């Protein structure tokens, strides 16, 4: 069996075990089980990183493997969640992030070898910058989305004086989820902006026009505008709490929709 296949199996097993332990530990309110699950997921993430590193040598600038791209996206998602876990000691996001990463990873294995040739004109390092920054910003958006959902549920209960049930009692304070929101917009917006701007510059170089009226470009500009408003209100006006949680959720949902649109619309952003 090849090293890459062994690594893939190891990654899937570790993610699956980690996800089960985190879920069981959260529901049973056993911190030690949760901590074990987090360590397993971290080991899975390391295996994932190694497999991406090995796979990088097989990628060519003139083409891309869609399975590999999906693996990069899932890696970005978990990297951001682990960054938050490390900085804020916030483990609850792993409860959602590990199963999503696992699902994306398994799906990516199914798609592996599905290679799409890029026109030679597009085979430039700009492609890496464009995709890399957008994937990272999407990961920050998803972290903001997860934190926003938990914030709204908790905030609603505290505001309306409802008792917290089960594992909700073990959740961190509202302020912690608000910090995740702040981190996600503070890092996510600049990355998203770089991703969009690099895309336009790339298009200008390749096609001689930065904007081609592609539906994906229009939606992306809309998201950028929304994100800019969110960034400004949060950073300059000091918005926090419920409004910013709702904004983070909205932006992620729209982004997810635009990503999905790539698969059904035949545009030059289509990966189908």
């Amino acid at each position: 069996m090849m090293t890459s296949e062994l690594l893939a199996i190891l990654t899937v097993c570790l993610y699956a075990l980690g996800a089960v332990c985190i879920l069981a530990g959260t529901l049973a309110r056993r911190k030690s089980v949760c901590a074990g699950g987090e360590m397993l997921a971290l080991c899975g993430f390391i295996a994932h990183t190694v497999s991406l590193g090995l796979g990088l040598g097989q990628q060519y600038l003139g083409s891309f493997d869609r399975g590999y791209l999906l693996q990069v996206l899932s890696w970005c998602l978990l990297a951001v969640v682990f960054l938050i876990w490390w900085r804020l000691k916030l483990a609850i996001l792993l409860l959602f992030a590990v199963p999503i990463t696992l699902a994306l990873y398994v799906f990516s294995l199914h798609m592996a070898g599905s290679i799409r040739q890029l026109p030679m004109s597009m085979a430039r390092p700009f492609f890496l910058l464009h995709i890399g920054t957008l994937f990272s910003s999407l990961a920050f958006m998803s972290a903001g989305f997860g934190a926003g959902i938990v914030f709204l549920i908790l905030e609603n209960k505290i505001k309306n004086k409802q008792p917290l049930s089960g594992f909700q009692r073990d959740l961190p304070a509202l302020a912690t989820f608000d910090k995740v929101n702040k981190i996600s917009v503070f890092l996510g917006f600049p990355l998203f902006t770089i991703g969009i701007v690099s895309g336009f510059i790339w298009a200008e170089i390749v096609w001689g026009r930065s904007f081609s009226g592609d539906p994906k470009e229009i939606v992306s500009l809309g998201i950028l505008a929304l994100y800019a408003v969110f960034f400004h209100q949060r950073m300059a006006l000091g918005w926090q709490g419920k409004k910013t949680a709702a904004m983070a959720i909205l932006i992620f949902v729209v982004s997810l929709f635009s990503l999905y649109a790539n698969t059904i619309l035949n545009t030059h952003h289509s990966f189908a």
Partner: protein
Amino acid sequence: MPPIMDRQIYTVGLNHKTASVEIRERFALSAPCFSEESAIPLSQDIAEVAVLSTCNRVEITAVGASANAPETLLNAWAAACRHTVEELKPYVYVLSGAEAVTHFFHVASSLDSMILGEPQILGQMKSAYRRAVSLKTSRVILNRLFHRAFTVAKRVRTETGIASSAVSISYAAVELARRIFGDMRAYTAMLIGAGDMAELAATHLLHAGIAQVLVANRTLEHARILAGRFNGEAFELTALSSRLHEADIVISSTGAPGLVITPEHIRNVMKKRKNRPMFFIDIAVPRDIDPAINKFDNVYLYDIDDLKEVVETNMGQRREEAHKAQSIIEEECGLFLEWLNSLALQPTIVSIVERGRQIARDEFLKTAKRLGNLDQNTYDAVQDMLEAVVKKMNHDPIVFLKQQYALEKDSGERCIDYAQRMFNLNKDRKKSRMHRRTGCFFTPPALTARNKESA
């Protein structure tokens, strides 16, 4: 005094459920009672004793050497408090055996406390144990019982959520503040008015690490006195509007007939604070804070009734968790009683081992005569070998004996009887006792001769 296996654990006591506070005061056995001349001395009836005396309970846990133990304990207790037993008896419960052990574990785990899950009782039990140890009234059985009880209490606290939620109004307020702000070190609390409950809540906030306390009162002097206790800052109530934005947590308990904080205040304050969250705790009756402020984003308001409801819910959660704790206590009680019962088996096990050693020793003496003088190293090697053979030969029968003993529903006497007859132990008892005193496996004849010469 009868052998250790015939002893029984007894608990005689009264608590908040059986006696009023006046009765508990009258029969309290406070520390001074337990000087060198202990109030409950060891006697023919009492082999071990420990006294737990708190504001909610007085309990004497003892290892009785006879069936008269409870009566002896009651007499000693009544005498120590200078009352008659008849005065004491109506309020007292007497437990023995498994019931006493289960009760002891319940008390240690705070399942029998007035406030379910309160942490003080474990500390009080540890003090009681230390006192019993210093008076040398706690020995093999009570030592084990106390240590098991501490383990049970720890398991109950970690494996159930019995102590995870606040059950006092002031502490519930602080817990809520923690749910909103998390780490308190960067936040400021403001007391409006100088009520006792507000002061208590502020004390809890300080313990939680709050950065600063501001005190607003109609009388500046009162505010200064209170602020002095928290190393805080005092100001007059008239300056409240201009300083309210500085506080993240506001505890209001004035005696004002009208509202002290209105939505108008909050509108201005939230602008100044750039919408940073604020938590208001209104424990005044009539209320100081308009309930309408709870509609503002990032503003949270709890009044006294809301806090009472939180406390009630938390009490309910603790009661649910107490059910889970029962299984832990049953399991631990079973283990302890198993150990206690196994004490009766110990003399038989010792006799089996001694008999094996004696046979080995006799056989070696016969062989040594044929071998002549042996050097020290050879003696040591043979001694080690015979010790190992005896241990290995006896291991499986002893394990089997313990298992059968645990399975027997009566006191296990039949099992002990079979073992003694099988190994012919009654005959060897005298000899084994004699050899046990030598302290080593056996004394080599050659060495004995040499020792005699040197003497």
